[in-house]
């Protein structure tokens, strides 16, 4: 495939791997966090870590939309479907996320909930148009990449005058998650999570640009290299990070220049600002309650806010006791450090959210890498 195969070329990979081996200082270790689940998936699927020297280690970050969704939010969606009788539309990844009482959206569907998998927010609007007698709720999750399409859906519903469409808004913000990790005691005080730099988001950065990361580079002295989701992008970003570390630099560099610039997509940003505003606080799985880390629907579009239209208050629910998703999302533990990884918790019967999406650290390691553990 043109423009895809070029970024998966094994020969080029060997060349970059050789230069990484040559440039990495054998006297020290390098710990880089790939923020996004898309990178986690690419690293596992293409076996990128097999091409890295032993002293260059990748730490999986929290950038998997399904993984950071707390149980209470999935509970809300389930209650909308089962108690309020709405048609609940969501992206496929959300269906298997474990919620309270042994339920998930998939199990709620089997109990009679009208839960539909959609490929885009526009499909949910179409469904509402076609079924004027049903209340249709779009369960909107994800980082900045999926936020503009939700904004478009809400504006479209407003233009059409739809009275039966609303959104359960759970959109979250990347910079807040990065700050939370950099501010965590494991990174800042105790040093138990050594962190020498970030592989920055690909798709998120096409929307927000590279500017928001400049603060992290300056304030926390951590290099950031924005990288595409192909395996060669990741390899090249690692080489750039090693160079920054070796030269004592902490800058934002852009490996993904074919899609990302400094300012990002201004039109999308304006659209998001028109429809959404900051939530004062929002609970994340693993990162707890973070201030100004998520979006809610503005008052002008309040009639499309499912939390206002229906009585579904948010209640925080603790994770399963043995589940280490929280620590894994903060980079404190690896999937194989969790006692229930691969035994009680598998992709067929996930206990924690990281075992659900293919972008989750546990699912990626289980599916592609667990041969290394035996």
């Amino acid at each position: 495939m043109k423009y895809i195969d070029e970024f998966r070329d094994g020969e080029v990979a060997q060349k970059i791997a050789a230069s990484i081996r040559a440039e990495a200082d054998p006297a020290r270790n390098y710990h880089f966090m790939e923020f996004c689940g898309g990178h986690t998936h690419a690293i596992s699927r293409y076996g990128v870590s097999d091409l890295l020297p032993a002293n260059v280690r990748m730490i999986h970050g929290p950038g998997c939309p399904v993984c950071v969704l707390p149980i209470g939010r999935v509970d809300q969606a389930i209650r909308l479907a089962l108690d309020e009788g709405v048609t609940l539309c969501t992206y496929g990844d959300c269906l298997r996320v474990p919620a309270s009482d042994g339920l998930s959206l998939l199990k709620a569907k089997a109990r009679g909930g009208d839960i539909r998998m959609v490929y885009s927010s526009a499909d949910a609007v179409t469904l509402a148009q076609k079924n004027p007698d049903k209340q249709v709720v779009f369960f909107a999750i994800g980082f900045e990449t999926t936020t503009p399409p939700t904004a478009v859906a809400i504006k479209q519903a407003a233009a059409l005058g739809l009275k039966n469409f609303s959104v359960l808004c759970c959109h979250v913000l990347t910079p807040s998650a990065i700050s939370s990790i950099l501010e965590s005691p494991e990174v800042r005080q105790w040093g138990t999570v050594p962190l020498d730099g970030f592989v920055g988001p690909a798709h998120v950065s096409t929307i927000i640009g590279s500017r928001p990361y400049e603060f992290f580079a300056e304030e926390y002295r951590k290099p950031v290299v924005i990288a595409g989701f192909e395996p060669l992008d990741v390899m090249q970003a690692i080489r750039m990070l090693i160079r920054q570390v070796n030269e004592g630099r902490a800058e934002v560099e852009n490996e993904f220049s074919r899609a990302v610039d400094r300012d990002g997509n201004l039109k999308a940003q304006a659209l998001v600002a028109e429809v959404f505003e900051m939530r004062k606080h929002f609970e994340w799985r693993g990162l707890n309650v973070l201030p100004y880390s998520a979006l809610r629907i503005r008052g002008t579009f309040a009639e499309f806010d499912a939390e206002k239209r229906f009585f579904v208050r948010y209640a925080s629910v603790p994770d399963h006791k043995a589940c280490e998703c929280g620590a894994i999302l903060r980079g404190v533990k690896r999937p194989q450090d969790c006692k229930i990884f691969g035994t009680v918790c598998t992709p067929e019967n996930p206990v924690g959210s990281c075992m659900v999406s293919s972008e989750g650290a546990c699912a990626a390691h289980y599916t592609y890498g667990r041969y290394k553990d035996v």
Partner: protein
Amino acid sequence: MSETRKPYIRPLDLKHGQVDLAHGSGGRAMAQLIDELFARHLGNEYLGQGDDGAVLPLPGEGRLVMATDAHVVSPLFFPGGDIGCLSVHGTVNDVAVMGARPLYLAASFILEEGFPLGDLARIVQSMAVAASAAGVPVVTGDTKVVERGKGDGVFITTTGVGVVPPGRELSGRRARPGDVILVSGTLGDHGMAIMAERESLGFESPIVSDTAALHGLIETLLASGVDLRVLRDPTRGGLATTLNEIARQSGVGMMLQEKALPVKPAVNAACELLGLDPLYVANEGKLVAICGEKDAEMLLSVMRAHPLGQAAAIIGQVVADDHHFVQMTTAFGGRRMVDWLSGEQLPRIC
């Protein structure tokens, strides 16, 4: 003497008619449907017996193989085939990969009230063409009708019987470390033909299903005298699922070479677009073959000489592994597992 009246006053209306509940009631309407549609297209001496079951001659020596397969594909018609020929190929292949010569098929239809009779006729004709091309008659059948909304057009279950000659041993339990793994052609064609149709991807040259009866190819492979251990058709769940099944049955591991996997560029592109992995996408006209190492090249050339095996390839090797992992050296130069499919990647594909 008055003239004998025709048995039915009006023939089935294949242009505008629809299936109704009477077509499954056991009464005259059902008899008419069977006569004018099923018997007309599928007819043979056994089906023509008209009894509750077909009475068949005993095949010669050997052992009987029996396999059954339910077909619920959506859409019913897709580039390269339809549920009719698919239901013949699927079961013929399940019998044939056991090393058997497929002899007879039975077919059960579950029809939904309101389904156009014209579409049903197309499906039955396609079945008839496939069965006659394969030389495997449909010798008995059944028809049921469910209320509107309780089915999805047509579901077809076919059961096949075949006979394996004495001395021929093929089983998923027979793979041994050192054996070589081959596929008979490109991967994922059927699944992506269905998905492209469902998602209206509209490629300039559409992806065509590979649905085909494989018993001819299999007979050629067996006749060549190579040391074949395992044959299987990687349908639902694709190559990855089939190899994991064999690895578990035989108590071995496998190591694949990603570079060697044959995948059509259009299938690759469609998979990329939909976020799917061709290793997990269904095939309906492909074989996985495992043979002793010394026979691998010969098996490959025999496969490639057959019209259904032109794109055959050696894709990996069986290895000793107590964990029964299927692994792969990626084209990128790393290594990863090729795990069981978890969840449902593509519902209603066959």
